[in-house]
């Protein structure tokens, strides 16, 4: 469902994306799925949950699970800095999930001519989270995350 919605959004004239930094790379997250962006805060660990699940936070009275995008992508564990943010995603299938990112860069607008689908290499986990690549006006490339794949539970 999530995936379908993203594709639907791509077909419209243009869409806005939040550009985030995770490790060396920059990724785009469709703004339609972003509920909120909050600063790093105390995370309560939940025993026996998947390794990339960091725990739960209190988001204005609601308990929201938080995952590390770095761990999910098989990168080095997060080092929390002043720039670290938790992006709260609202996904149809998975509900509300927080994703820890190194930094939030900017918001860009891409129209569908600037977005190209990528064929996924099933052997590489990291690439599988990317559904398409956007060419920014400045000439840079942004990998647009397949949020459904990000939120899907797997090691």
């Amino acid at each position, binding site marked *: 469902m999530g995936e379908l919605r993203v594709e639907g959004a791509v077909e419209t004239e243009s869409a806005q994306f939040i550009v985030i930094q995770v490790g060396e790379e920059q990724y785009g997250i469709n703004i339609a799925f972003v509920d909120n962006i909050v600063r790093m805060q105390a995370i*309560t660990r*939940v*025993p*026996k949950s998947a390794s990339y699940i960091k725990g*739960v936070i209190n988001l204005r*009275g609601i*308990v929201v*699970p938080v995952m590390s995008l770095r761990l999910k992508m098989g990168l080095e564990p997060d080092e929390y800095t002043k720039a670290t943010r938790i992006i709260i995603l609202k996904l149809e299938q998975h*509900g509300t999930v927080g994703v820890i990112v190194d930094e939030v860069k900017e918001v860009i607008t891409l129209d569908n001519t600037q977005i190209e689908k990528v064929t996924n290499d099933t052997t590489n986990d990291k690439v599988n989270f990317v559904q398409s690549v956007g060419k920014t006006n400045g000439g840079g490339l942004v990998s647009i995350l397949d949020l459904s794949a990000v939120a899907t539970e797997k090691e």
Partner: protein
Amino acid sequence: MDVSQYLEIFIDETKEHLQNLNTQILELEQDSENMDTVNEIFRAAHSLKGMAGTMGYKRMQNLTHDMENVFSEVRNGNIKVQPGMIDILFQCLDALEGYLASIQESSDEGTNDNEHLIKALNDILNSKGASAGEAPKAKEEAPAKEEAPAAKPASSGDSKEKWHEIKLTDTEKNLYEKAKADGMFFYGITVYVQESCILKAARAFLVFKALEEHGEVILSKPSTQDIEDEKFENDFSVIVVSGDPLEKVIEAIKTVSEIEGAYGSLLTDADFNGASADGDSDGEETAPEEKKEAAAAASEAAKAAPTTAPAPAAKPGEKKPAAKPVVNRTVRVDIEKLDVLMNLVSELIIAKNTLVSTASSDDATRNGSFNEQIEYLESVTTNLHESVMKVRMVPIESVVSKFPRMIRDMQKNLGKKMELHMTGEETELDRTVVDEIGDPLMHLLRNSADHGLESAEVRKERGKSEVGNIFLDAYQDGNNVVIEVRDDGNGIDVAKVRDKAIQRGTITPEQAENMSDKEIIDLLFLPSFSTKEQVSEISGRGVGLDVVKSKIEALSGEVEVKSKLGVGSTWTIRLPLTLAIIQALMVIVGDEKYAISLSSIQTIEDIPAADIKLVEAKEVIQLRGSVIPIIRLNEVLEVESKKSPDADLMVVIVKKGDKVAGLVVDELIGQQEIVIKSLGKYVNKAKFISGATILGDGEVALIIDANALV
């Protein structure tokens, strides 16, 4: 008339009436002579009909109408209650429930006329009069004869010819004179439509058509328009001018089907003389009134007709099919409970105001009065919580009252004799729990009826009474509500379960050796495990007990079974009274805070490290003579304990049913009221974490479900 605002009330009340009918008809089956029961059923059917009529649900109205007719006859002693009739009545209730479900979904009753039921009901009605020929009609008319004179003082004695009520004015008189001169006759005719007739207006139309072949309808009562709109009871009267003899005209009317009879006579000069005088003095205004009176008389006489004109609400245009269920879930709340709530809220506001003023006062007085205010606030919020919970509480009666009917049906299906005994229906539970508890209970009851109880022959052999007994007992036990389903049947055959489990590969024979009977019985709660050799319609597809267990656990409850072969089984469901807010003990393990529900805690003990013994490589302590296994929470929670290994242990003794265990924690914080928040499916892999709560400082603490650890 817009009736949509009453829809919720209608649905609620209809449910109540249906439930009441179910119960009463069951009672009637036991004691068919009980007039109180019959009267109660009659009243419920009558109210249902009236409500359905007002809301414009014609099909529902028709069906209840016929049910009411049958009971009217039973009440008058004309029909005896028979088993076949009870079955049909139950089918009617199912059909009504069908309508209700449809109304709830779409605010439309659907299109199922349930004609076979209406026919069956009419067959019952007609059967008793078979020998007496016209008996049903005659009987219905008989009371009419008694009542009618009172209602229409002006008319003549023969109540069948209601056309006498028609006011004849000078216009008619002129026509009459003219017709007389032409050799035509004036007839007054009253036509009776069968009570079971569904399309009365259509029949009336056919009657009018038939009449027009023989002459002309001068006047009708009710008006032609009202007749077309079905705004009449079971009869209408006409004044006809015709050249044919009266018999021929009446014959023509009777050719129309579903017409019970037509009675008429020739109008004479006298009719007009009296009438015109009457008409002059009273004018038009009295006419509707009298019509109503007559209608009331007729309805009372027939004891079956709609109470007040239901037709206005019955316009088909009002029934718009909607895609979504149109009704929200509601709780009916005692106004007193709301008053208490209101009072508490006002107290809360006062407390807030006092706090505000304290905050702006001098430093010297501040601290003392702050604490005072906070204590006050605390008591207010606790009371508030309690009364909100009370508002959410409903008796489980609404769920369990459908079970006697279910058992009755199963008795027929399974060919076993059984009886259901229920106590504690008034026990209250949170509405959300009550809504969810129905299915698990039904599973357990079916299970008892199908697997538990033996057939009558076997029971006889074993020296038990032929009729199997199933008990459903509910009661409150501390902060829990316990619901027990008990039967005096065969009990669970542990050996059979063990064999089956081995055969299915659920356990190995070696494992089976070491398992206690209780552990083996617990295997029944595993998915797809059914011991009954034969799969029956009622239970035995193996999708029962595991569903029961998971559903009850989802409600933070637990289910246990005790069984004795040959004597019976007892299934015990234990549910928390409320779900959202609990009293909890806050503890520290490592550097993390956790909450443990107070309801499962027995005591808290300080145990010297040296007191720990090893039994079968498991750590246990001895406490007041009993051996209790201990569970080190830091190991379960995968955190480093901050206490040195030889320091005294802080042990929280928890209890689940008759099992007891000690949870070792690092530190106690204290007791606190916590609001349970769901963790969601996303993170909750561990069964012993039942949720989370948000602490005063905004931090999230997890709630440990001690039941899952014991």
